[in-house]
């Protein structure tokens, strides 16, 4: 599953450490998320969508293989 976290974060002028602090995770988690190495829980995805003020499906790009 791909995501736009890096792009959305950069658009808001946030550093990885700042984003990590806002959603109470480690910076390493943000790095892994941005690299697409780690798929977050629904709760963390929800927190990210709240921070970026856009729906989850705009933050995380679900491909055909992720669908039903």
């Amino acid at each position, binding site marked *: 599953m791909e995501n736009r976290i890096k792009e959305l974060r950069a658009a808001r002028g946030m550093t990885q450490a700042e984003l990590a602090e806002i959603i*109470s*995770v*480690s910076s390493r*988690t943000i790095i*892994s998320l941005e690299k697409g190495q780690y798929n977050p*829980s629904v709760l963390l995805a929800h927190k990210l969508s709240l921070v970026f003020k856009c729906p989850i499906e705009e933050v995380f790009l679900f491909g055909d293989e992720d669908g039903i």
Partner: protein
Amino acid sequence: MKKDILISVCGLAVGIILILLAVFVFTGSNTLNGACYGLGAALLVLSAGNLVGASVKKAVETPEVLKIQAVEEHDERNIRIRERAGWNAVRIFTPVLCAFTLVSALAGAEVYVTFAACGLVILITALTIGSQIYYDKRL
């Protein structure tokens, strides 16, 4: 914190007592002597390590450090890493222990060594099955 220090101090005292017992009292029996030395040394080293760790931790604990520690502890990626690491350790350790049990039985090692290894294999298997049933009902 005080409870941890108290436990470490008790462990240290018990460790020293066990080593002293091994040196001065259980000199006739090899098994008791070895057990006292082993347990005593393990308790002594673990307790001393905990005490040193607690004193270092106390020296560097600031509100900022505590906040970082809390984040690291509750970070969902770290939790997942811990779970996977634990599962992998058991997955690798179980066949190694089974092989050790088999080799010890075939090589004619002392019966209590083979029984202890068998007991550990049964314990790990029971814990794994028990945990799976527990989490199957809870999750």
